[in-house]
């Protein structure tokens, strides 16, 4: 049953259409959820106006994490931007590396070796799994179910071990470089990856039993935060959030990149478009990523170059041009808009993270008429990461 936002009763509207919220009336209360709050996704906050325990208005406030990446990049050479883009999204940094590298490659006319494309695809799927595992822990945690977070953190750490042996780092991998990737797969990687994937599958089975086949979780999430499929395009909703509404959007299939055309998969779609469905779509998408990694490891070329020959990066200049590179990250469509002006520095970089639309516009709409205790679960279900809002 869909929970319908209803503004018919209160607050009433002024003749100009704005909400008539008179705080001095004693009927309303201002409540800040965040930035220091366990029920908030990262460093942002929501300014709630409540009436009783019902939210009548919500405003998203960001700016707690602004590090000005886009501006920083305008003062860094093309190679120097490579180590900072990953910081735009902490839980899934690889997408930034890929989008930035692909944009630079397109404008600089670099031909990336095929083997590098396979390794990139592998890394992106590994990153997706990590991101979903973190999400599942957060989604359950927002409703007080801490054990799921403990389990997913454990298997996520195993995946971080795989990242560590592949790239040399656990969180900020800095492995996808303009031109290709730094190196090939280490010896014995496949076997250890298979063990990790099995551990993930078995943990996910437990997660299904404890989190999804759970009367409390269903009671709290089914019907919560309904997104009308009709507003999906209107609000720029992408990724699992859109797929849970039955809109089968997936950049991997719609505008294929890297080696996705050679892989066998279908976008995971849900119907009910509520918090429960979104969580379930992500769980199933995670299992699809496990399958994709198996497909990749079965077919990845084992020899050959992993980097295109680069010019001297110390004074690498890229001719005039602009491009937009997009891909499907765990939260939706991720894009990089890059403008070059013939100098050694990017003229403009614009990062299009899905969290921007989801947290800024969509959340403010969904939050109305929702119970205070459901705000956290609702927010987490949109899977937003503030750093990519404030890049």
């Amino acid at each position: 049953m869909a929970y319908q936002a209803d503004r018919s009763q209160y607050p009433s509207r002024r003749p100009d259409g704005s909400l008539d919220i008179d705080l001095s009336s004693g009927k309303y209360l201002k409540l800040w959820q965040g930035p220091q709050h366990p029920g908030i996704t990262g460093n942002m906050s929501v300014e709630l106006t409540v009436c009783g325990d019902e939210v009548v208005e919500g405003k998203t406030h960001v700016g707690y994490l602004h590090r000005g990446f886009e501006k920083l990049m305008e003062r860094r050479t093309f190679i120097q931007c490579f180590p900072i883009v990953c910081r735009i999204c902490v839980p899934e940094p690889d997408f930034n590396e890929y989008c930035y590298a692909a944009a630079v490659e397109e404008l600089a006319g670099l031909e990336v070796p095929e083997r590098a494309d396979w390794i990139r695809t592998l890394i992106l799927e590994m990153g997706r799994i990590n991101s979903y595992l973190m999400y599942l822990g957060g989604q359950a945690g927002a409703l007080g179910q801490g054990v799921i977070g403990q389990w997913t953190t454990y298997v996520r750490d195993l995946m971080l071990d795989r990242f560590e042996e592949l790239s040399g780092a656990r969180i900020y991998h800095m492995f996808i470089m303009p031109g290709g990737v730094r190196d090939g797969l280490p010896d014995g990687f496949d076997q250890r990856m298979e063990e990790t994937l099995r551990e993930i599958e078995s943990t996910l089975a437990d997660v299904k039993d404890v989190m999804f086949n759970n009367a409390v979780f269903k009671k709290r999430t089914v019907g919560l935060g309904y997104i009308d499929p009709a507003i999906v395009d209107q609000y720029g909703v992408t990724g699992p959030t859109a797929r849970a509404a039955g809109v089968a959007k997936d950049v991997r299939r719609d505008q294929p990149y890297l080696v996705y055309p050679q892989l066998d998969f279908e976008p995971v779609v849900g119907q009910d478009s509520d918090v429960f469905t979104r969580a379930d779509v992500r769980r199933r998408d995670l299992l699809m990523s496990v399958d994709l990694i198996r497909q990749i490891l079965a077919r990845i070329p084992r020899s050959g170059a992993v980097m295109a020959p680069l010019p001297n990066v110390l004074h690498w200049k890229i001719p005039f041009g602009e491009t937009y590179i997009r891909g499907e990250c765990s939260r939706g469509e991720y894009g990089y808009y890059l403008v070059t002006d013939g100098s050694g520095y990017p003229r403009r970089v614009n990062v299009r993270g899905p969290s921007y639309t989801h947290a800024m516009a969509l959340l403010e709409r969904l939050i109305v008429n929702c119970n205070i205790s459901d705000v956290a679960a609702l927010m987490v279900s949109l899977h937003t990461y503030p750093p990519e809002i404030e890049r």
Partner: protein
Amino acid sequence: MSLSDVLSPFSAWKNLFRDPVSIPDPLNDRPGAPRYRGFHQNDIEKCIGCGTCEAICQNAAIDMVVVAEIATKPGDSGLRPRIDYGRCCWCALCVDVCMTSSLSMSNEYKWVDHDPEVFRFTPGIDLKHWDSTELGYRRPEGHRLTGNERVVMGELAPEARADSFVEIVAGYDLEQAKLEADRCVSCGLCVATCPTHMAVPEYIATIRDGDYEQGVRLLYQTNPFSNVCGRVCTHRCETSCAARHEGDPIAIRWLKRHIIDQVPHDRVKQIAAEGRVNEPSDHRVAIIGAGPAGLTAAFDLAKAGHGVTVFEALPAPGGMMRYGIPEYRLPYDKLDEDVDVIRSMGVEIRCNTRIGEDISIDQLREQHDTVLLAIGLHQGRSTRIPGSEHEDVVSAVELLRRITFGERFDVPKTVAVIGGGNVAMDIARSLARMQRQQHGQVGVTLVALEAEDLMLADREEIDEAREEGVVIIPSRGPRQCLIERDAVTGLETVHCVSVFDEQGRFAPKYDDSDIQVHDAGLVVEAIGQAADHVFLGESLTEALEWERNRIRIDADGHTSESWLWAAGDAVEGPDVITAVAAGHRIAASMMLAFAQKSGRE
């Protein structure tokens, strides 16, 4: 919702009996992965202090610092990277870009200290327990961030060049030059090595930017002989180039030539004249010898407004650049361009004026405030072996001079050249060309005392001479010139076992049982040159301080006589660029003397 939804969550209880998966950090000894990007290591012997790590670091976490243990030497700045872990983001670009692969990262990742200052350290100098760790991030094989291989210089093929004096080297075109300039990492090790400290990274940058006029401007700041040095410089800069550690060094010499080739001569003159002082001073300078040292000093002094007259014994200015270097290496019109720029500064060059014959040194001294001796080494040394006094046993410099004069003398069908240096190669290759023109075949044998790998000539000179048909026989010492009926018929040589003794002194040892005779109608001696100091006169020769047949000079080129300076091959050698550096030094020293004199008056 069903009953199972109520019961299913209880399955979590099964984990009650599992071991914890967490690691008790920091008390664990879990090593980082083999590729882990942990704390830095630096192989201090391999590191050359080029600073590319500092240049690429986007966090400014790396500073190149002076290290007491490391001495500065050619090709090594003596600096070493100091890393600030308060800024480092572990991206390892510094490792990727390191020109010598000396910088790497260990797989060590734990370092606890109460003092924040210790996290700023110089790897390899501030010793750490991970310095010897084998594991950690190394630059993967073939992973290279500093560009391409050296652009091959176009040259005339051996058959096309073997019978002509046309310039061999084609020069880079625009695209090639850009590609080659792109390889430069702007470390500046070359600047320190160049005797006249040319602004190499900066002028290479002007090629990348296509701003050739600025390039010429930079060239003229330190060197008025860019046409010459762009062709025949001994390019010691390239021996200290950081790119040498990844392959061939940057072709600095060819890039210099490329810049000067791109700008029209008239525009070069305008650029060189920028900043020239137009009010003439009342100081007059006489310079003896129109070679690179004398003309460079003349350029600087004239540009500063002083009156300069250059006296040259030979018919045209240039010294050894004209009369020593064959035209196929340095076309005369290119030398003329450089000299023309210097003339346009107001320098008067009097050719065919020999000091001691046309004008005496005392006259010079009376008419000028200061005098510079830049006479070069124009007398060939002789081996003094039996038969060497014959008229068909000649010195290389004399023969090269005659070739420049345009004398069409007859070259016998067989020639022997004694010597393994660049002068020997020059004369051997020149005579080979003339033989091919006159007889249609080459018969030049070159014997060198040194073994093949120790020969003093540049490697490419040796290779190109062989391509042109010169027979080069290393490790042979001359014994006698064979003469039959008053004509030279050949050269007898013995095998040379070693050239230097244990103390490193010149003392060749021979194996007398290994004798060879090389047919030769002409024997050319190219074993070194000497200066002709006769014109100085007895009293001045007496007054000057000497050091092993050379006039003793101080660091500024000043002799023991207050009015006399000396520079160039005659006092220090060994090449054009050193002479240019000396010319600048002497001009500065003279101008300082003028200023002091004016101050006193």
